[in-house]
């Protein structure tokens, strides 16, 4: 069995004393991640509550230096105390009563420590710019490692640190420097059967969304500015249509001043499509640049999407690695926009020196020059300064930052520890709220730690009891079934939820009225209906083929279709897609909505990469009742406008997007059964005649389209 440790320094209150606490949590890897990641089930126990001592301003630098020396020792002493019980049982095992009613011999081993990079650096005793996993030197952080670097072996570091002569101290420091290690003997090295290098877990929230995407957006901004495409980007940004689990941006991109994790997560799936839309119709000089920029961004987005799969096969892992390589090959295009602070400072310094030098020279010569001459000279100087600056920046720019390097460990991590998503620091944040912050809220702030702990204890005891009762009642239910002698599945099988039509429209009781409401020509409608009816089998259920009879049948119009879509790589959980077609009415004080949907196309044309499905815009939803037939069957139908794929539905090469046409000629309407509507699609308009299908919007679409 494995133990997962989590820790995170947190603020308790921002006002009244600015209190902080440093809680450490633990949970076990034996609990499957669907329970482990759900805070309502309380699988995460508070293990330690460290107070964070307040800082003392105004103390001398020497005292601070001494503090820096003792801090790691104090930290280690505290962690030694907490982790000490693990030492014995990791080797010899211990017998435990388990939930299945048996006793097992268990070997609890610490296997993960889920924290952000700064805390990792503190706990593992590494430098803030080195990787806790491998001995990668700083200059190579941004490289694509064909050959993996040596994994940190913390044991020799510890040996070195423990047994060195005082005279060797300088040599030791240098030795550690080479591996990016600061302290040889970190808090985890003493533990049996634990490899400290393995404890680090990649974290999607901090690493990808808050780290990489944030940086990437800076490069993209710079790129757009250089090519004067900012306005197009903003337009495409504002035109992003709604999609389940995605909140539509309300502002233009450039107006957003602050980004939160949620917004970053929002941005991830649509950025490459928006960019593709903004960079449409390049001229010949821009073509290559745009192509590689799109390729680079798309590769990174593909990588992050794939990293979030719940289960991997060797295939998906190799795709992941190849996306990463594509990213490394194409990232050069953004190099000029990736300027670290230090380089900026250096460039500014160089500018200043150059300007002073020139001012000095011109001051010497100024007497002999005319005004025109002086102007020309000043211009030359300016050009020279900016050239020198660009040179320096090009020289010094690099992609060496730690979050970039972590990506190289993702695939190997999946092989060793399973899917990445379950190590997200998100669960830790939620645990904070329940266990610490609420408790602090309730306490009278006097010796708060005790009160927090007892508050949490009460909440926890009750929660666990409620879950236990629930679990017990389930077990009892099964026993009853067995007693009655019936053969039934022990777990109630979840029936697939059905598609539901909602939002009935008033004043539509016949096809003619529906057509008037939708502003569609009646003859088109009838024609489509007939075409649809002829495709269905001839039986009692079939609608009449005679237009005159069809006209009399009662019709109900609807504005919303709820489509249950199974969650990606899950079978019994569904997400409800609500496709709306509210025309002519407005939808919640915006314009009217006609959502895009995926429509299954039976045996018809196989549209290239999008595979037996087409994107369509939902025009109307209606029920039609065949009162003339004996069965009086109800047909639930949808009127859609097919968006024709351009290039036969194949990927647009540089960005791997699918462009679709957007022309309105009245001939591309189709009537389908609502069963053929698979789910919502996200289509981002790019020009008057063309849209781009965003297949990266969620994992499911990404997986199916790719």
């Amino acid at each position: 069995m494995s133990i997962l440790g989590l820790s995170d320094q947190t603020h308790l209150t921002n006002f009244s004393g600015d209190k902080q606490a440093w809680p450490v949590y633990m949970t076990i890897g034996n609990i499957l991640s669907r329970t482990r990641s759900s805070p309502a089930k309380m699988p995460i126990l508070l293990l330690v509550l460290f107070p964070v001592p307040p800082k003392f301003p105004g103390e001398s630098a020497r005292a601070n230096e001494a503090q820096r020396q003792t801090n790691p020792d104090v930290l280690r002493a505290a962690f030694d105390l907490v982790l000490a019980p693990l030492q014995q049982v990791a080797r010899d095992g211990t017998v435990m009563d388990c939930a299945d009613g048996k006793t097992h011999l268990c070997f609890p081993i610490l296997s993960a420590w889920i924290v952000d990079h700064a805390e990792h650096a503190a706990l593992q005793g590494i430098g803030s710019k080195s990787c806790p996993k491998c001995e990668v030197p700083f200059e190579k952080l941004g490289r694509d490692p064909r050959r993996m670097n040596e994994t940190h072996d913390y044991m020799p570091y510890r040996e070195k640190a423990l047994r060195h002569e005082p005279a060797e101290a300088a040599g030791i420091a240098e030795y550690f420097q080479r591996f990016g290690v600061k302290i040889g003997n970190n808090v985890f090295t003493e533990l049996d059967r634990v490899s400290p290098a393995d404890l680090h877990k990649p974290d999607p929230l901090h690493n990808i969304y808050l780290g990489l995407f944030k940086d990437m957006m800076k490069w993209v901004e710079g790129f757009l500015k250089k090519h004067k495409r900012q306005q197009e980007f903003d337009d495409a940004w504002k035109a992003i249509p709604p999609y389940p689990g995605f909140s539509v941006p309300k502002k233009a991109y450039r107006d957003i001043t602050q980004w939160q994790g949620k917004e970053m997560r929002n941005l991830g799936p649509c950025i490459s499509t928006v960019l593709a839309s903004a960079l449409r119709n390049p001229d010949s000089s821009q073509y290559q640049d745009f192509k590689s920029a799109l390729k680079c961004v798309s590769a990174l987005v593909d990588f992050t999407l794939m990293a979030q799969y719940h289960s991997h096969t060797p295939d998906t892992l190799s795709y992941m690695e190849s996306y990463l390589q594509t990213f490394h090959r194409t990232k050069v295009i953004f190099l000029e926009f990736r300027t670290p602070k230090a380089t900026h400072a250096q460039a500014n310094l160089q500018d200043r020196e150059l300007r002073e030098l020139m001012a000095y020279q011109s001051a010497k010569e100024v007497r002999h020059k005319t005004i025109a001459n002086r102007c020309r000279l000043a211009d030359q100087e300016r050009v020279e300064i900016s050239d020198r600056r660009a040179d320096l920046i090009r020289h010094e720019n690099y992609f060496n930052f730690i979050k970039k390097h972590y990506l190289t460990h993702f695939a190997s991590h999946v092989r060793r520890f399973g899917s990445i998503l379950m190590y997200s620091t998100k669960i830790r944040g939620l645990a904070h709220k329940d266990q610490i912050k609420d408790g602090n809220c309730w306490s009278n702030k006097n010796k708060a730690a005790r009160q927090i702990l007892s508050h949490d204890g009460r909440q926890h005891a009750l929660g666990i009891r409620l879950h236990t009762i629930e679990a017990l009642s389930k077990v009892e239910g099964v026993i009853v079934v067995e007693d009655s002698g019936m053969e039934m599945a022990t777990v109630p099988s979840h029936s697939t939820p059905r598609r539901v039509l909602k939002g009935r429209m008033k004043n539509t009781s016949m096809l003619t009225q529906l057509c008037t409401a939708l502003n569609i020509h009646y003859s088109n409608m009838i024609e489509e209906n007939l075409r649809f009816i002829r495709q269905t089998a001839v039986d009692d259920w079939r609608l009449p083929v005679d237009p005159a009879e069809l006209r009399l049948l009662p019709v109900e119009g609807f504005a919303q279709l709820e489509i249950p879509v199974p969650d990606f790589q899950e079978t019994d959980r569904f997400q409800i897609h609500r496709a709306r077609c509210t025309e002519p009415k407005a939808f919640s004080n915006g314009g009217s909505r006609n959502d895009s949907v995926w429509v299954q196309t039976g045996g018809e044309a196989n549209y290239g990469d999008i595979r037996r499905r087409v994107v369509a815009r939902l025009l109307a939803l209606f029920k039609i009742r065949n009162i003339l037939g004996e069965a009086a069957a109800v047909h639930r139908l949808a009127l859609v406008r097919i968006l024709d794929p351009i290039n036969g539905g194949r990927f647009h090469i540089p960005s791997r997007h699918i462009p679709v046409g957007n022309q309105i000629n009245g001939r591309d309407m189709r009537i389908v059964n609502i069963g053929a509507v698979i789910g919502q699609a996200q289509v981002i308009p790019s020009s008057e005649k063309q849209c781009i299908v965003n297949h990266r919007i969620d994992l499911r679409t990404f997986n199916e389209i790719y």
Partner: protein
Amino acid sequence: MTDDPCSPFSSENDFNLASWFVRSKVAKSQIYAYFAEDLGCTDSTSFLSAYSLRQHLDILDPFREYLVWAEATIDDGRHATTFYYRNIIDCVRFLIRQVAYSSDMVYAPIREYDLSEERLYSEMHTADWWLDMQV
């Protein structure tokens, strides 16, 4: 675990009331008021004040001895600080015997394969580390 799921509360009603008080975060003074004004209209509750409610809650968990807090002091040379910690092994014992998680509990590593005989990596017990560690 005692047989009665509601112990130490005397009845299911009692337990539900207590659970509602805690989950909806009713303040202590409001709980006192509830009993003082006799809003419950029942006479057989096993607790009649916020104080006795807390006492009941404190002995609610049958495995509470696993989760006791120890106190320790660390001294960094200038000021000593107190912190609280639990025994990590006892925490593991607590988690692993919870009936609530029994349906989602695994005890041994496995190798999973999909239909085309490809190795699947999903949960922790399907990946290599656990297999390597298994003795």
